[in-house]
């Protein structure tokens, strides 16, 4: 069947070079899959014409689920019947993206049989992406994956598949158990994940410390980022060891501290912890000598997203510090209150970050019963347009509530 592959002089160029070649992967799959073979031909045509050949997505899915599948059809079905349907399945990955060879092989067997044999490990939200199959295969695949305990991920206006850094499983800096929280939230919000009922998508991402190795602050409607409240743990012997090995502690560690709260006297590092902003830099550079404090928990932030359509947002602080202990009830309750408000008053296609800006952070916090604290702002307002909410009426000693 190999010689049946279409001629792809353009794509062949991308088989060269040291980085793993996706063209080789498509060709590998194309050896057995007519879908992948036609994908190859279609892609070569796109490379020649400098334009994609996919139609605007259609709604396909499995029974009882409102999301998890991205429908896709080529606009050249006669020429490339193998990709006349080419739907993507988003499969919820295990937290931390850990696998055994055993389970992966089973997934591969299903996908080879019923799909293109091509995947993304992983999609940019975190799912296992099974790239390209026909409508009629969706149910069988869902069933067979279910037998392996793999369920669909999110798509559309629902909770999207939560994801997290490897956290305590491998990292010494994890200030809470990211994988446990990810699993717990995913299970708790199964209904919201599978049945789109929000104004728009809602993403959770969990990072164990401010290094934020899942980019949660840039890419999730709710970002849960580990931090600590007490003092950085210092092993002064290890500090000296780094110094002895030639590290320029003054320049590279102290000199880069954003809060200018460290000093090094040639022998010992001292830190004014009440000024430290928990940026991680010193700890990153000297992992043997410095460690986050012992009173650990997380900062919760809300609202990041890509630019469409009001401009990109970063998440912003709504809870400066919270202990992260199962069952995380306080967080879940808050999430429910946020969703209630957003579902009631949010506009279609308005992410929660945009919603907050439209209704005003102060109003949002009040409605969601979240304490208002100065840690939530980079600085207080600069404009004088305060919506004062009370005024006195003539002949009336009492405050009138307004607005």
């Amino acid at each position: 069947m190999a010689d049946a592959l279409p001629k792809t002089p353009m794509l062949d160029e991308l088989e060269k070079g040291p980085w793993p070649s996706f063209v080789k992967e498509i060709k590998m799959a194309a050896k057995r899959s007519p879908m992948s073979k036609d994908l190859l031909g279609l892609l070569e045509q796109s490379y020649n014409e400098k334009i994609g050949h996919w139609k605007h997505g259609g709604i396909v899915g499995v029974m009882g689920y409102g999301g998890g599948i991205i429908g896709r059809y080529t606009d050249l079905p006669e020429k490339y019947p193998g990709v006349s349907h080419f739907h993507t399945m988003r499969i919820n990955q295990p937290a931390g993206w850990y696998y055994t060879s055993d389970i992966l092989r089973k997934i591969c067997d299903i996908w080879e049989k019923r799909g293109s044999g091509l995947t993304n490990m992983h999609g940019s939200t975190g799912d296992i992406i099974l790239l390209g199959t026909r409508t009629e295969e969706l149910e069988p695949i869902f069933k067979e994956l279910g037998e392996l305990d793999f369920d669909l991920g999110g798509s559309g206006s629902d909770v999207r598949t939560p994801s997290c850094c490897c956290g305590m499983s491998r990292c010494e800096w994890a200030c809470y158990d990211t994988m446990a929280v990810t699993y717990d939230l995913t299970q708790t919000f199964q209904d919201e994940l599978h049945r789109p009922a929000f104004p728009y998508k809602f993403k959770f991402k969990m990072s164990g410390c401010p290094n934020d190795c899942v980019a949660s602050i840039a890419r999730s409607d709710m970002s849960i980022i580990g931090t600590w409240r007490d003092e950085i743990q210092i092993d002064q012997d290890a500090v000296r060891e780094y110094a002895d090995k030639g590290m320029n502690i003054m320049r590279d560690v102290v000199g880069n501290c954003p809060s200018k709260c460290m000093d090094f006297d040639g022998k010992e590092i001292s830190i004014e912890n009440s000024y430290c902003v928990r940026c991680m830099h010193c700890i990153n550079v000297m992992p043997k000598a410095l460690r986050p404090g012992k009173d650990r928990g997380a900062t919760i932030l809300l609202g990041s997203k890509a630019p469409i359509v009001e401009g990109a947002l970063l998440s912003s602080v709504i809870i400066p510090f919270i202990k992260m202990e199962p069952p995380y009830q306080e967080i879940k309750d808050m999430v429910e209150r946020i969703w209630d408000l957003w579902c009631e008053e949010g506009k279609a296609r308005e992410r929660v970050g945009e919603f907050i800006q439209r209704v005003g952070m102060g109003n949002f916090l009040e409605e969601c019963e979240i304490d208002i604290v100065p840690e939530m702002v980079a600085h207080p307002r600069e404009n004088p347009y305060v919506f004062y909410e009370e005024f006195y009426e003539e002949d009336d000693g009492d405050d009138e509530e307004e607005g």
Partner: protein
Amino acid sequence: MADPQERRTDYGPPHYEKFLPPVIKANYGKWKYHEILKPGVMVHVSETGDKLFTVRAASGRLISVDKIRLYCDLADKYCGGHLRFTSRHNVEFLMDNDSGIDALIKDLADMGHPVGGIGNAITSIIHTQGWVHCHSAATDASGIVKSVLDDLIEYFTETKLPGKLRIALACCLNMCGAVHCSDIAILGVHRRPPKINHATLKKQCEIPSVVASCPTAAIRPATVDGNPSVEIIEDDCMFCANCFTVCPSMPLNDPLNDGVSIWVGGKVSNARHEPMFSKLAIPFIPNNPPRWPEVTDAIRNLVEIWAKNAHPYERMGEWIERIGWPRFFKMTGIPFKKEHIDDFKHAGLTFKRSTHISF
């Protein structure tokens, strides 16, 4: 009235050169350095070796012709008839030698005009008209300014602060005092939507411009008691008074609800930190004439905490930036409230978009 043909117009102000003291004319553009000799007194030294001594005194800004004549007498007595005012409305006496300085300071003191405001000091408060002359005022200007400066006088007559501290006051959101970039700003605020005078509105105002004037679209055309007029969605009103500026029938002035807000941390100069806007510290203090004690207390508190904790040369805003806003609110004892959180156009950019938090 004169024949327009022969009427002289558009001649502009007199040329400043007419008024410059000889020592300045001779050394214009040749100044080499200056030194602060004592509070309110400095000397500029020229490349030619000439010296120019300046004595700066509180003027008060709202002054009578009588007072100006008294200044003139001093200028004649000590300065060859020369004097100037500063960009912050102090009066300066200029001399080419230091022989008269002490006597001049004494005469000024006798007149009730303290000398100071140079160097790391508070200088006079830029301010506006208030109840003395403006229809928009949510508070008086001169009364608060006088009360605050009476209270802070030691910081004017001595140079014991970490750096300069600039206070400004504006009696309404039009901000004629340009208080938006001051170390401490006092801003008159309304807290109640315009009370529409439906009887006069149609006569005095163009309804479409009134509707268009509102930045929050809180104003809608309406017919009230048979008159074409407007109505206000009160929840959407942020008390900016832009509607009143275009329409006299929509006054916001209200004795029960007008007052002032306090803002901190702005600056204008490019020294060290780039210029910064002032930020909201205290959302509201009711008007309490004649001496606004809650305002003077609040400002003294701010000045003293800054003075005690800032590094040398650190302006209010630079200090707060270093210690962080949460610590500022803790140290000053000012409660942080909903009003502090921006909800205008660029609100999102003022949210804390990182985990840089200290505990």
